[in-house]
């Protein structure tokens, strides 16, 4: 009986290891990589930016701040996260920097390489851009370049629209301080949406989408996105915006070819 139990435990461990390994992304050479390019458009009138009277730390944050959740100019949407789902091996994560909207100087910095390496550099009461990405089970470094404390509060959305949120982390970031936080996949469960706020400064609000591979892009001010070096295959391409929701389409990328596709959101 004891022997049977031992075998059962061993088998379980092997299975868990296999499942874990099977879900991990592997960096490998990509031959005849394909490219997906496109635009994210927005029709309708974007909501007015939220205006905030700053109540704390005016000397660092300023007296008034605004939060433009939907940044659309001439029908082109900035800040939509475009993700290619289902790629299990391929190019390494790219090194990228994204700046928060002025007057904040916070940045989301992706160090890249084998992993995403997200660094959230808080400056001028700003975590960084309104949208970004993170990978599960990898430490995200939160830094604070301000001379005041911020209270980082992250939530996972338990529904698709971010109406039901569960706290993941709630911790002070002291002036010039930093710490690492892991977004444990066990706690994320199937959710892919992370909300980030500062409990002391309510205009500091950001959203992160959980990605599992480096095949993602964030649309620029012209609504454009490019995902390159894709191993040929059949995938699901998603576009997500925290306010406008999620869209997806099936794509089939051919070796060495460029595929053009657009997403259209409306308000």
């Amino acid at each position: 009986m004891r022997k049977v139990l031992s075998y059962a435990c061993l088998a379980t461990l092997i299975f868990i290891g296999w499942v874990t390994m099977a879900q991990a992304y592997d960096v490998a050479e990509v031959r005849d990589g394909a490219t997906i390019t496109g635009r994210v458009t927005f029709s309708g009138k974007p909501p007015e930016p939220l205006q905030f009277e700053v109540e704390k730390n005016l000397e660092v944050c300023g007296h008034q701040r605004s939060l433009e959740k939907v940044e659309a100019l001439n029908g082109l949407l900035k800040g939509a996260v475009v993700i290619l789902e289902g790629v299990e091996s391929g190019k390494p994560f790219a090194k990228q920097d994204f700046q928060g909207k002025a007057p904040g100087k916070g940045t989301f910095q992706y160090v890249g390489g084998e992993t995403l390496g997200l660094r959230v550099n808080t400056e001028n009461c700003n975590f960084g851009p309104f949208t970004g990405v993170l990978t599960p089970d990898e430490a995200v470094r939160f830094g604070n370049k301000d001379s005041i404390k911020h209270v980082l509060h992250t939530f996972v959305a338990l529904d698709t629209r971010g109406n039901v949120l569960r706290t993941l982390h709630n911790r002070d970031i002291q002036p010039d301080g930093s710490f690492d936080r892991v977004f444990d996949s066990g706690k994320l469960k199937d959710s892919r949406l992370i909300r980030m706020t500062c409990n002391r400064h309510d205009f500091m609000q950001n959203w992160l989408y959980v990605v599992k591979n480096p095949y993602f892009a964030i649309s620029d001010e012209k609504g454009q996105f490019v995902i390159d070096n894709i191993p040929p295959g059949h995938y699901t391409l998603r576009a997500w915006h925290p306010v406008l929701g999620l869209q997806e389409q099936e794509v089939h990328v051919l070796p060495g070819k460029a595929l053009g596709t657009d997403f259209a959101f409306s308000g």
Partner: protein
Amino acid sequence: MDSGREKLWFGFRTICMSVVSSAVIIGGSGLAVEAAILDGMMGGFEESMGKRAQEKGEQLVIGDFYPAESPDSHGPIGMMGDHTHNQGEFMFTYKYMRMFMEGNRDGTNNLSKADVLRDFFVAPTEMTTQMHMFGFMYGLNQTVTLTAMIPYVLKSMDHETRTGVKFTTKSSGFGDIRLGSLVRLYAFEAPSIGSHRFHFNAAVGLPTGDIKATGATPLGVTRLPYPMQLGSGTVDLFPGLTYSGGLGRATWGAQAIGTIRLGDNSQGYALGDEYEVSAYGAYRWADWISNSLRLKWKDWADYEGRDPNITRTNPAGVPLVPTALTGLRGGERLDLLVGVNILFPEVMGLENHLGIEGGVPIYQNLDGPQLESDYTFFVGWQIIN
């Protein structure tokens, strides 16, 4: 006490001891507990609350224990362990407490000095207890807040003898140090239902207070009666549960805390077990000031055993003073307290809270003759990083 009740009480004490020990061990060992204890265990409840919130177009937030920085983010200053802290956050508190007792009572009836002197050689007439409390709280991780409190106690009791001699006894020194953990249990909030937070209180009282205090009496320098001693002399457990809620400018809360004495102290007795329940409501008039109204029920048992060094009778064999008898220590009391909390502007990044609270008993039932309470007053300053 009948055996059924005794068994029940023993079971309750055992459960409390286990829970408090576990909580203190969890807190003390620094385990990186990453979320509130009940997070993820309330699936059905969250689903229905989530649906309700979505129907109303609201956001439901689960597990957020962080109250906005406002005067009413803390309970009335007379409460202990009313709020938790975020990881890495610390709070230093200085709190002053003054309790004044005058006149004697047996049951719910007032007793005159003559009534007491009919049965005892000495009658206590009034007592003042002052306590300077130095507290420290630290957010160890996302679930556990560590707490420590060192009290400095000053006691003074006035007496009168059958022969009309008046005298005062005094004692002062450090009391029992209290170490503990606050363990976050569950929190949820939505705009229409407000915020609701629950945490568990677990603390251990260490017998650091003097239980051999002596003073000058008409019989010479003798060991002072029980209420003049500064500590319990036993290791004490303080298990409890705290709830706090808020909606708009209103906040409210409730707390139940027990006191369980483990064994007898070195002098052969144990103070009675206690429990107290508080319920309060507060209103924030402005971003910097709030008022509170609190009802506090306290029940405490008679002492068990006795200290042979505390004189019970005078040389003529007359019972000396009610405070020397362990069977005349129990009672129950309902206090009504009014408080004010003020949030000051930050200084060097530190949050400053001032709290004042005072109240009077509206009901007291004592195993007397025993001095009755007249008022309790608290003032405290809290600094948070």
